[in-house]
């Protein structure tokens, strides 16, 4: 637990959004947050909801039970179910990822992804020119927000890392920078931009290709461009000019739920092109999950992948790639869902399946018992950064230690997973 004066914590690491601010001072009384500084509504909500503890520690077959019984029941389910899948790794600390990797080795369970694999595949294909957020703060005089809206989704991104941040070579913050926003409609971030465009999603690839061609000074069929992109074609020309004038640039973007490799590759190639004559970095905006940390840890841990082709399985392992999409649940007879997102996915899946009980579900999350009646076993855990500790990786590859800021009531996911794996033969 952090230095706490009564219920006051300093340097709390907030996982309320992808900014992962680690300079928060907060105080709380019971489950109520009395103060959260610097002010951030998202962070305050995150802390408040994480402080709440469900009244029941565990449930089995819809009935409240104690932790020991729930773990025993979960072990029985694991033993009885030959086709097992673990989902929710992206929401676990690196320490829990390690425990999950060991668990999958022991139980031959597979790993399911909550997010798209397109980014990893695109990076493996074309490379990536990126950096840490401090590089943007210190150097970037041109910043692009491409299809992302940090003012709305990461309230302190602008002041800590990007639009307003004061850095060694950007001493005047906002006034030393040109901000470009390209999104589907006018966003909160667009209101802070020097140049903002709204591009319909179906024309995004076309727009990226046009900017890339302009940056590379390629001959462009302008009539065709205008026919496709309308007035935006000429605005994209202004974007390209601003990009070329940059001394140091940063390109923020958001990964989509259903991502295309082609989109990611085009962004990666464009940013590489922008490095001719200046330094230009690309950074995913990230969310509050430990997606980057989970993927990275999986790439250094011994996790045997289930694939008919050994080489392909090894490659999946090295990229931190997952075995299957979490949407593909039908082939499994047991799902171990870890974290609130995975539990919600399984709750929705169960609801859509009606009374059918396949696959069976072990839910491990702060919210697991809230809908415990839907699951075969539900075990409550403490929210990471609030009632459990671990390490997480920011979207820029920086690992932060995340201590608990309130007393732990339940075992952490890492400890629980280790318990589930106990007494099993490899």
């Amino acid at each position, binding site marked *: 637990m952090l230095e706490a004066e009564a219920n006051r914590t300093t*340097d709390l690491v907030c996982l309320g959004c992808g900014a992962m601010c680690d300079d928060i001072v907060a105080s709380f009384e019971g489950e109520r947050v009395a103060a959260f500084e610097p002010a951030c509504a998202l962070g305050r909500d995150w802390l408040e909801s994480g402080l709440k503890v469900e009244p029941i520690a565990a449930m089995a077959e819809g009935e409240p039970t104690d932790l020991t019984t729930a773990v025993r029941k979960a072990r029985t389910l694991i033993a009885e179910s030959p086709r097992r899948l673990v989902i929710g790794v992206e929401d676990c600390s690196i320490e829990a990822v390690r425990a999950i990797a060991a668990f999958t080795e022991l139980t031959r369970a597979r790993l399911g992804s909550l997010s798209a694999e397109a980014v990893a595949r695109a*990076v493996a294909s074309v490379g990536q020119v990126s*950096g840490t957020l*401090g590089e943007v703060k210190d150097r970037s005089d041109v910043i692009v927000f491409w299809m992302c809206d940090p003012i709305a989704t990461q309230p302190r991104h602008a002041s800590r890392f990007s639009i307003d941040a004061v850095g060694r070579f950007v001493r005047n913050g906002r006034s030393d920078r040109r901000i470009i926003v390209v999104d589907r409609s006018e966003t909160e971030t667009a209101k802070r931009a020097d140049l903002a465009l709204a591009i319909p999603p179906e024309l995004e690839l076309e727009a990226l290709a046009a900017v890339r061609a302009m940056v590379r000074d390629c001959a462009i069929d302008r009539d065709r461009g205008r026919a496709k992109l309308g007035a935006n074609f000429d605005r994209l020309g202004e974007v390209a000019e601003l990009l070329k004038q940059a001394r140091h640039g940063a390109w923020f973007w958001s990964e989509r739920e259903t991502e295309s490799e082609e989109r990611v590759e085009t962004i990666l190639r464009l940013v590489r092109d922008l490095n001719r004559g200046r330094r230009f970095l690309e950074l995913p905006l990230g969310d509050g999950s430990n997606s980057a940390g989970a993927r*990275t840890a999986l790439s250094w841990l*011994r996790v045997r992948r289930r694939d008919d082709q050994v080489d392909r399985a090894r490659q*999946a392992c*090295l990229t931190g790639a997952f075995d299957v999409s979490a949407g593909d649940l039908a082939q499994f007879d047991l799902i171990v869902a870890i974290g609130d997102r995975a539990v919600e996915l399984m709750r929705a899946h169960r609801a859509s399946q009606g009374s059918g009980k396949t696959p069976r579900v072990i839910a491990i999350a702060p919210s697991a018992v809230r809908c415990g009646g839907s699951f075969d076993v539900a075990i409550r855990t403490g929210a990471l950064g609030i009632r459990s500790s671990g*390490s997480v990786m920011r979207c820029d590859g*920086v690992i932060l230690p995340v201590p608990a800021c309130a007393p732990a009531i339940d075992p952490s996911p890492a400890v629980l997973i280790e318990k589930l794996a106990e007494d099993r033969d490899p």
Partner: protein
Amino acid sequence: MNPRPPELRIRGGRVIDPAEGCDEIRDLWIDAGKVVAAPTDPDVKATRTIDASGMVVMPGGVDMHSHLFGSKVTAARSFLPRQNANPQTAYNPIPSELGLLYLGLGYTTAIDAAIAPLGARQAVLESAELGAIDRAFLVLLANNHYVMDQIRDREPERLKAYVSWMLKSTRAWGVKAVNPGGVERWKQGKGNVSSLDDRVDGFDVTPRSILQSLAETVDDLKLPHPLHVHCNNLGLPGNWSTTLATMKALEGRRAHLTHIQFHSYGGTLDKPTSIRSKVPILAEYVNSHAGLTVDVGQVIFGDTVSMTADGPVGEYLAELTHRPWLSHDIELETGCGVVPIRYEEQSLVHATQWAIGLEWFLSIANPWQIALSTDHPNGGSFLAYPQIIALLMNKELRKDYCKRLPAKLASRSALVDHDREYTLSEIAVVTRAAPARILGLATKGRLSPGADADVTIYQPGSDIERMFARPRYVLFAGKVRIDDGIALAEGGAQPDRGVLMSAATAPDPGALAHIRDWFERSSTIAWRNFPIAEETEEAGE
């Protein structure tokens, strides 16, 4: 009651322990993970005896410059999954496999030579997976904003306090200088530096002032390992003059120049194919300056991956080869470039690089001033060490190999003129005794009482490469971990794991307020989240 007998006796082997000037047939006694003196009572029997008659016994190998873990390695692994799919040929095996591969080769200690301060937490977590070899890492500081500010402001005490604090906070073993000032200049979009006296805007320092100040600081702090220098202009034709200028700039101070092969090129910058060896003039300088040491960074033909904190080198290679480029700039300190590369026998440039590496080994008179490295995986995999050893021990093998390479090589390198052949004792120096001494690892690279019982036992034969590729036994911390090529299972009766070795520094508490003030203004993480607690590695395990 009789005292407990020693755990192990290695009987009758040819013990080659250059640190003790020993090359003789004798026994080696081991207990509680350490080499111990032979019992005075001749009737004492060890719990276990290994008959090493006819075998060669050396300290465990020490790889002083490799890339083992951390963000650049995981990035490369993810970036090149196809090339890394087979663990036996992978450039970047996962740590648990990497540790076993080192052990299988008779190496029991390995150093990651380039960890960014902000990447140290990942390095510590990941290194815990290495298994039964000891490890350490060097932290990058030659493009560090606080370091450059203090050099500009002529504040040597603050610089000393910062280096001390940084080593303690990151749990590093030593300080690495990569392309001093050049990475920062490149990150500003102004291109790389080209000489030791180019100025770095915004800091008013030069590569020369950074090198000299850091080397002096490392000496003042009495760190076990001298400043570990990756010179400016790596890989560029004509870079030998920068390398010689670096050596001269460091005169009077301890310094280790790493992967020296990549810094020993004649030729002209406008013609990449013009490279030629400048080893004689550089080696002559090292031979006349006992305080200078080098490791080689030998090139091995085949596919590999270049990974470096020298960001501009990554870009140069990517543009030169038109290969995918992975680049990651790290705030307040460094860059990172990863590019796949293939060294081809029929390429005159690559053949010249290969020859330059071997020339270095054959040109340094005192083997204690040179260490074997491939700069894994930059020049090639460490798994090629037996191949390099064979070439060093057999001039005919070298000459035969050269016949496979472009005929023009003779005009680029004097390799074929070298008749020197390394002895087994000299091999023991460049693969364990010298790197341990250069690193300041007092209990490594030697077999005297009190030394760590990391021991490699080889079965000699006419095939030197095979002898070194497949040790008969490898012991780590006194336990047999490899027996005839078979790794003994971890855990159970032999639960020993290696440790992360860190320099013990005590930063001046009076200087911390200044460092903290700068850190809180400059970093995107909180002050308290930077230092790595000792429990972090255990959490990783």
